[in-house]
């Protein structure tokens, strides 16, 4: 029997005052898993009051004690690893391996937060003038919020929450109303940690609660991951309200395949990059650019391997690709495939009208391969966020780089080559925040910032790595003389 997800405020599970709910379905079976409240501005105000009230005591809690909470938190997540992974599969539709990979990446971020006692240290200089010393200290900055997407419901909140609170801030999470169950479980574990009331808070909902967070005067900063149009709105709203903001948007990630690449090995990796999480990730490979002779080889090998992918329910370990998030997503993706076909592209492997036996109510789009995609067409320019890989042909390396740099997005780009010169030139000249060399998914580990340029990122400091320490702290300069 499904339940209505509660908010977690001031150390307690509380019901939202919302009258509206979002239905949360298992996208493979169609089963109703839960209802998610569309929390109100008053729900947000209560959470912010709690977080603000907790801040002064929490910031003065020794940083080593704050880090110890992360040690215990990590053990909890490890102990519940399979259970969390299964929740992610059920509410999102991805495969077990993908869900486990997501939980693992989340744990990496907890690991990173354990380094805060080292990373928050600052520097100083004696005798900047006679008998005068100058030092910098990093201090927590207040109440932070994160608005997180459906596609990595467990991992993305952990990009932010562990580092934010270990730096001494208090925190409010608003996850996607499409996938609130992994974060519900995340907060059940946080509740077990026995953090002081108000240090972490959960408000479920959609636009009203997100807007309330961005407009609340006691919220210092907001982190966001989602589509580019929304990221831009988040950035503009937060900056208008005087907040720090890091807003990671959408993507159109290109992969250049050089004639000197090992095509068979490259294709294996490109398959994971394009069809992993059914293409619903901001690092998904969207367009493979075959350079010169590589194009035909790439097309032939991809056609063979794409058609062989096993699509099914994620809890079946042998499933290689799961569902997309909803029927609305199916309709949008299928419409884009049709538009591409209308523009003259060749649908080599067609995932439209896809069905999986026993899962007739699922939101399925089969792995799709589209060839002969031209510049300025829908598949070359628009984010699909589904299991669709497009193929473009480039005359040479320079032409491939030109195609890639024409994109208004700049999240990630990769090159497959055995030639160091091409690899070096690619790293140097491609305008994307995450670059892969013989890696299709250029996903930075937690100690590096998650790059992103152009319409893929709005803000100054990225999520993860030292950027996150900068984002979650205020630097204070102390100049002192003792006589």
């Amino acid at each position, binding site marked *: 029997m499904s339940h209505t997800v509660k908010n977690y405020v001031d150390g307690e599970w509380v019901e939202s005052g919302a009258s509206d709910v979002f239905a949360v379905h298992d996208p493979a079976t169609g089963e109703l898993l839960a209802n998610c409240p569309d929390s109100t501005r008053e729900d947000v105000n209560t959470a912010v009051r709690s977080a603000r009230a907790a801040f002064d005591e929490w910031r003065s809690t020794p940083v080593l004690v704050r880090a110890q909470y992360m040690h215990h938190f990590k053990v909890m997540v490890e102990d519940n690893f399979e259970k969390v992974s299964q929740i992610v599969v059920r509410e999102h539709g991805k495969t077990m*391996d*993908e869900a*486990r*990979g997501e939980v*693992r990446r989340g744990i990496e971020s907890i690991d990173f937060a354990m380094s805060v006692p080292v990373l928050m240290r600052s520097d100083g200089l004696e005798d900047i003038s006679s008998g005068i010393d100058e030092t910098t200290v990093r201090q927590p900055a207040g109440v932070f919020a994160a608005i997180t997407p459906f596609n990595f419901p467990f991992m993305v909140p952990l990009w932010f929450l562990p580092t934010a609170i270990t730096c001494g801030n208090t925190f409010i999470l608003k996850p996607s109303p499409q996938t609130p169950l992994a974060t519900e479980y995340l907060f059940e574990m946080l509740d077990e940690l026995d953090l002081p009331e108000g240090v972490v808070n959960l408000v479920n909902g959609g636009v009203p609660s997100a807007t309330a967070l961005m407009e609340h005067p006691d919220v210092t900063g907001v982190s966001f991951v989602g589509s580019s149009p929304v990221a831009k709105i988040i950035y503009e709203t937060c900056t208008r309200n005087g907040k720090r903001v890091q807003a990671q948007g959408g993507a159109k990630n290109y992969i250049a395949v050089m004639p000197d690449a090992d095509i068979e090995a490259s294709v294996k990796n490109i398959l*994971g990059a394009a069809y992993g999480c059914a293409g619903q990730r901001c690092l998904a490979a969207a367009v493979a650019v075959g350079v010169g002779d590589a194009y035909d080889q790439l097309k032939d090998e991809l056609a063979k*391997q794409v058609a062989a992918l096993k699509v099914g329910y994620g809890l079946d*370990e042998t499933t290689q690709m799961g569902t997309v998030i909803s029927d609305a997503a199916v309709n949008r993706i299928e419409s884009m495939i049709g538009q591409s076909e209308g523009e003259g592209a060749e649908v080599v492997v067609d995932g439209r009208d896809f069905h999986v036996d026993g899962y007739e109510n699922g939101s399925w789009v089969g792995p799709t391969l589209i060839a002969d995609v031209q510049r300025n067409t829908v598949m070359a320019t628009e984010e699909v966020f589904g299991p669709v890989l497009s193929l473009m042909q480039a005359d040479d390396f320079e032409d491939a780089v030109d195609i890639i740099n024409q994109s208004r997005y700049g999240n990630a780009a990769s090159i497959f080559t055995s030639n160091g010169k091409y690899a070096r030139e690619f790293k140097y000249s491609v305008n994307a925040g995450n670059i892969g060399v013989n890696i299709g998914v250029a*996903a930075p580990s937690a100690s590096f910032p998650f790059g992103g340029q152009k319409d893929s990122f709005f803000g100054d400091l990225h999520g993860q790595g030292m950027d996150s320490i900068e984002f979650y702290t205020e630097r204070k300069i102390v100049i002192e003389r003792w006589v």
Partner: protein
Amino acid sequence: MPSLNTFGAVFTFAIELETRLSAYYSYIGDAAMARAADKRRKKLERVRRENVVEITLEPITGLDADDYALDLNDRSAAGQAGAARIASQFYRDAAPKINVRAAQRALERSGREHGG
């Protein structure tokens, strides 16, 4: 689970194999072998948890669960040797299919412990 075509499918098969072998060895009264199988199972669970790397997830081909069916009704010395031989063969075949070295090493070692 006929085709072991993903990282998770390979490791889950190995974990289930060791679970069944532990029960088998317990039944025939070989406590040391049962403990060893339990230890391998725990190690494989940890390796599955810690080494599933999003950026290197790739389809796996050429590994079929039906090729490694154990006959655990045969409790004779020959039956025990046969079970160990099949387990060892599975690990030998599976290890090269895995593209994460730490995980590959765990499979290789499990194979050696079965006498392979």
